């Protein structure tokens, strides 16, 4: 098992905060350096990409992905010009395993990817999504994280084309002693490219979550707009939240924005629920689950939504949101 530093921020900050990157164990499976798309289009890093093997190419549909200890899997999503590809990956992981998904989206095409990730106790899952978008191409991604001891995930989107677009929605619940580490990087190169990232999550117990979100507005991307927002609900006294929303900008004619809100449920909401006889802990749980439910139902994939809601309900009943 090899150690590697992954999920590095494009521009690091103070080392003592310990949020610039994360060290993980790479699965032992034999790697294939160029077997899963462009290895430079990665959020986790080239060392991770080189460790991924067993790559398949798909154009749509539902994939039930079971990853065992030491296993890696690569998926290349193919799309036709002006076509639509919709892919759902329901990922159940055990042990130390890795998954990479790559798409080179041609002109005018739309790729929609839904990932639901369930990890078990003792799992270290590495999940990387790399995307390049040509003129008018659009990438929509929804990621739902439902546990796992250590989940390290990233989305790297290169919006190369004129009016290329990214819409990224992420929901997570992290509880017990779980760790979730996310590194999202959006590179705006195309004129009038657009990106919107919306992250919602709940942290309970001793959970640790890091979200690094970078919008990189490159010179030449005139008219580009990038927006990012994270809303974190903390319901564990010892949970730790790290948020680093970064904007890098070398073009005048652009708009970049980010916002973050981290905290408790508003007192009036809790008061309303406790006044109706709902205990405080349960009230927290109901509101927290409701946040993710709306995201899960919005995936548009009934099969995945049904399983995800069941898993969410199980976590709620275990008091691990």
């Amino acid at each position, binding site marked *: 098992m090899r150690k590697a530093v992954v999920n590095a921020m494009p521009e690091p900050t103070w080392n003592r905060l310990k949020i610039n990157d994360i060290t993980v164990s790479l699965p032992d499976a034999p790697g294939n350096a160029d077997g899963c798309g462009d290895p430079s289009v990665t959020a986790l890093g080239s060392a991770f990409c080189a460790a991924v093997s067993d790559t398949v190419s798909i154009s749509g549909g539902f994939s039930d992905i079971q990853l065992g200890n030491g296993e890696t899997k690569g998926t290349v999503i193919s799309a036709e010009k002006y076509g639509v590809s919709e892919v759902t990956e329901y990922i159940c992981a055990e042990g130390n395993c890795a998954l990479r998904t790559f798409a080179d989206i041609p002109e005018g095409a739309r790729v929609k990817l839904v990932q639901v990730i369930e990890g078990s106790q003792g799992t270290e899952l590495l999940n990387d999504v790399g995307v390049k978008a040509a003129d008018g191409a659009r990438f929509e991604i929804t990621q739902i994280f439902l546990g796992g001891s250590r989940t390290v995930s990233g989305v790297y989107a290169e919006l190369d084309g004129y009016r290329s677009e990214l819409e990224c929605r992420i929901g997570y619940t992290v509880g017990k002693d779980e760790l979730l580490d996310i590194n999202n990087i959006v590179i705006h190169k195309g004129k009038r490219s657009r990106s919107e990232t919306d992250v919602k999550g709940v942290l309970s117990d001793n959970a640790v979550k890091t979200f690094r979100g970078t919008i990189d507005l490159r010179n030449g991307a005139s008219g580009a707009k990038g927006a990012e927002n994270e809303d974190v609900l903390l319901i564990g006294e010892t949970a730790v939240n790290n948020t680093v929303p970064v904007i890098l900008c070398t073009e005048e004619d652009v708009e970049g924005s980010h916002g*973050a809100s981290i905290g408790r449920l508003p007192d009036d909401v809790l008061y309303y629920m406790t006044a109706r006889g709902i205990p405080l802990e349960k009230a927290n749980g109901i509101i927290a689950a409701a946040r993710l439910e709306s995201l899960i139902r919005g995936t548009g994939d009934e099969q995945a939504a049904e399983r995800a809601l069941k898993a969410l309900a199980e976590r709620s009943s275990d008091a691990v949101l």
Partner: protein
Amino acid sequence: MKEKTQVADVDRAFYDFRFDEDESDFLGTGLTPEMIGEISAEKNDPEWMRKFRLHSLEVYRKLEMPQWGPDISGLDMDNIVTYIRPKKRMQSDWDSVPDDIKQTFEKLGIPQAERESLAGVGAQYDSELVYHNVRKEVAESGVVYTDLESAMHDERYAEMIRSHFMKLVPPTDHKFAALHGAVWSGGSFVYVPDGVRLEIPLQSYFRLNARSAGQFEHTLIIVGENAYLHFIEGCSAPKYYEAGLHAGCVELFVGRNSTLRYSTIENWSKNMYNLNTKRATVAENGRVEWVSGSFGSHVSYLYPMSILNGRGARAEFTGITFAGEGQDLDTGTKIVHNAPETSSYVNTRSISKSGGISTFRSSVVVNENAVGSKSAVSCESLMLDSISRSDTIPAMVIKTDKADVGHEARIGRISDEAVFYLMSRGLDENSAKALIVSGFADTVSKELPLEYAAEMNNLINIEMKGSIG
């Protein structure tokens, strides 16, 4: 060339005048224990300080250069003069100050400001304070405002200095803090007793005149309980082709129910590396307010830090950074919430133009015991062309579920709608844009005393000259 600003008669050369130095006053370059011993002897340091300097030098040698932030490879420490002997010891009578130094500060308006609006003034020229004075009624209230070295040798304050000096910023903090610990010279000591509210500000002005030199002043301020102080710091230097270094250190101790406002207008010349460290600790219901304008220097690493150690303590940071040609200014703030019901508010503006790089960097850490704490961070950046760069790198580390933290940031250009609105009311396009930039900086300038707000606006207008349209 057509002027594209509303203030056309201000020349940056105003800050670039200089007088020749006698190089026999230079203690030499390089960093060795012998050199540190020489500085210590020159300053007649007490034994603990001599040992502290030597220990700091050891730490300096062990620590690495920062692995993040702007490039400082152009800074050759072997060529930096760390200490320049003063021509004359510090004076409290302005007429006794050497003529060339007097002319320098008169050009910068320091004596006039003292007469008109300040409770006391300190002026440092190269390595040493050359003038320090405090109004009689202020001194009678028990306020101490003097140079740090005099205070260190005064038995009334010696123990206070020993127990506070580099306790907030230890030499192990980073490489340039260690350098500061080894070669520090000059700077001010302020003590405000319990219950004293000083309604008019104190000011220290730092001027680095010498070529290839470093300035390493140390400012130590202790504010007792139920007290108030506004301290203003100004910095400038003439321009040379050789790199200069400013690695000062500011340590602020704010007592219970007290407020300390610390305002800085920094206008180092564009050959300077400004690697300054500023830190405050705030006790119960105390408050620290930083107001910071960064306009000069070639490279800056500047992040005033507030450690909120008492229940109900509060920090505010208001800053503006203007990065022009050849400048890489990495500025921001750090806040640590270490006690319940603490709060912090950060509001910054940055402007990049003509290839300048402006980076806003911050960290807000809310520790486990800081229940009921609140923090809000807002930063806005304006890009005036596409050869410049503007980055925001804020970090939030939250370790309790009983805190509320908010952050928002925006990067963009001058709004076409705003320009159109102003033009529809009779302004030409360039005037409209200049007005918008001034308005963008208004959030900071309104926090400054009037004369400093005027200086800041002048600096913006100098920078804006010929830049837009």
